């Protein structure tokens, strides 16, 4: 589904990614872990099409189509979703209005009619229940005054509404208490099926207790240095990253 080949990227002339190779197949959950500054968030921004980063080499394929030259909204229309680590506030725009606009823009881009209002309402109700969201929440301004947990829950709510092919969860666990973490993870698990894929980017193993990955990759200094199964995350939790570094150097 998502294939990344020899990806190099820089921001303000500083090389951040130095040759990433990654293949995620439909139905899989992958996790990328790594110490601070390894390039984890850069990778997610680049897949989503943030133009502050420059791709200097390599390719990104979605279902066999090269997407690294596409605008961020075009990638979104093709099914790329990024759950932001720090979702921005948009004052005066309600959660409902925002998601309605997002859905209809995607439908328009894919040659479909706007979603009828009753269908939209039904979908919103269904998905907000999945994430145990208060109805009042939906009429609040997007992310304005939201707690950390509310922001992340809102991200996953949008993911549930948009039904992406590939969802990238960038540090979705940061700022979450244990209950919110459970709700968010539960939501992701329910949305997971054979036709989509999830890429979890995280610093800690905590989230992976709930969203169990098929593969865990360790990203260090702009490269994937180790790949393993779910147990690799536990090992990292226990031993930290230094041993991998030493392994590399050895």
């Amino acid at each position, binding site marked *: 589904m998502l294939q990344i080949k020899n990806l190099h990227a820089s921001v303000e002339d500083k090389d951040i990614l130095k040759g990433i190779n990654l293949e995620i197949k439909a139905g899989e959950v992958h996790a990328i872990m790594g110490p601070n500054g390894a390039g984890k968030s850069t990778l997610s921004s680049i897949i989503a099409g943030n*133009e*502050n980063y420059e791709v200097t080499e390599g390719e990104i394929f979605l279902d066999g189509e090269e997407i690294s030259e596409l605008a961020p909204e075009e990638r979104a229309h093709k099914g790329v979703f*990024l759950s*932001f680590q720090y979702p921005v506030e948009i*004052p005066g725009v309600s959660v409902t209005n925002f998601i309605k*606009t997002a859905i209809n*823009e995607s439908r328009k881009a894919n040659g479909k009619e706007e979603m009828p209002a009753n269908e939209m309402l039904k979908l919103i109700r269904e998905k907000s229940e999945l994430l145990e969201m208060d109805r009042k929440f939906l009429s609040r301004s997007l992310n304005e005054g939201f707690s950390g947990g509310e922001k992340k829950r809102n991200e996953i709510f949008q993911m549930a509404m*948009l039904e992406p092919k590939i969802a990238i969860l960038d540090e979705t666990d940061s700022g979450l208490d244990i209950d919110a973490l459970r709700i968010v993870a539960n939501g992701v698990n329910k949305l997971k099926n054979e036709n989509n894929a999830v890429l979890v980017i995280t610093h800690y193993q905590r989230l992976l207790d709930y969203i169990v990955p098929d593969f865990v990759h360790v990203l260090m200094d702009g490269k994937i240095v180790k790949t393993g199964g779910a147990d690799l995350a536990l090992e990292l939790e226990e031993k930290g990253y230094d041993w991998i570094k030493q392994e590399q150097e050895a």
Partner: protein
Amino acid sequence: MHKELVDVERVSLYKSKNMSKYTEDDLKVELENKEYEYGFYTELDSETFPVGLNEDIVRAISKKKEEPEWMTEWRLEAFRAWQEMEEPEWANVNYEKPDFQAISYYSAPKKADPNKKLEDVDPELLAMYKKLGISVDEQKKMNNVAIDIVVDSVSVATTFKKTLNEKGIIFCSISEAIKEHPELVRKHLGTVVPMKDNFYAALNSAVFSDGSFCYIPKGVRCPMELSTYFRINQGGTGQFERTLLVADEESYVSYLEGCTAPSRDENQLHAAVVELIAMDGAEIKYSTVQNWYPGNKEGKGGVYNFVTKRGLCEKNAKISWTQVETGSAVTWKYPSCVLKGDNSIGEFYSIAVTNNFQQADTGTKMIHLGKNTKSTIISKGISAGKSQNSYRGLVQIGARAENARNFSQCDSLLMGNNCGAHTFPYIESKNASAKIEHEATTSKIGEDQVFYCNQRGIPTEKAIALIVNGFSREVLNKLPMEFAVEAQKLLEISLEGSVG
């Protein structure tokens, strides 16, 4: 006098680093090339006075309109006062002063006759309304809105008069009111905006050509939104409407005013006066959507909009001004409330959008005279292109205004790096029991906001519209439903393609 100048901010833009590729340049070009949607000119057979202004012209206007002697004299007095006055220069706008001797002060479509039925109206006129999206028929049926349309200077179609008549509501052109209801006009005209109030008000008092008059009797709730659609058609003419709205005790009225003008190279002058009188317990809601021609992308042409709008509140009365200003090359406008009666309330909700070379100096004055008077000011300024957008407001608390309250909020949103937002709030309080709050924010549409929207599949253009509408939400919510939709569209059109 205790005078305090608080929180005067001047925000000019600096080049923000990291502007990403998708933003300004391409879109700016697109915006600049966007033509003014209402820029068409209708071939009507009109009757226009020769250019220039003197006592004879003033008399001629009055005669043309078959006005009584007192009205002619009133105009002449205003004209004489105007001659002694100087054009104000304190506003934060730069423009070439109009040559008042190069303007024609009267232009009426020849075929218009206020007594005609809608079917008799010049088909060209009707076509023009259609272009404006205000087909009279449709408005009549769909919106339950009675419209008094002023094209250039004469009212050509007044609808719903009958329904209004049954309630004793008078809604007609001011010329008609002068003839049919002289006692009401004479009693109230110039009581809120005196003829010598300011340069443009004096000019308007001397030469006003037409406008609307409305009277709501005691205890009557006007059952529909009253609406006037102004449009400047004839080249080289100034439009000087005069609106007088009297809401008798315990009555209620909501009034809508919309404006457009065709695009022309020369600047067109518009100097209107609007007077509102809310007697004891009455409530007036006055909403304006103004999208007069703003000039082209080089700043050539466009309307000069120098307007005096003021309302008087008696005991327990309330006046709300809501305005969405997207047009005009230069705007100079301060819809104000004189809170004379105890417990009276004044409100001002404004969205002012400037783009290209537009300049707006707009705001309000809240004059608290009575006890327990309250005022609220919510001003949203949006600047794009090379425009300058200023909020100028005065909150004045009189010595006898015990427990007066004011809350002001002025928010500015900037797009691009060449525009400016300025806030000039003046506060004068002579009563220690007053509570006055002023909040101001200035923000820029963030790249991160746009990227967030993009990531969810919302293209940049649409993202900007969404963010701007969100920013303006509090004010848009104050507009009557049918107007709110139009205003929202107008915001999108005015800002299409400008990103910061």
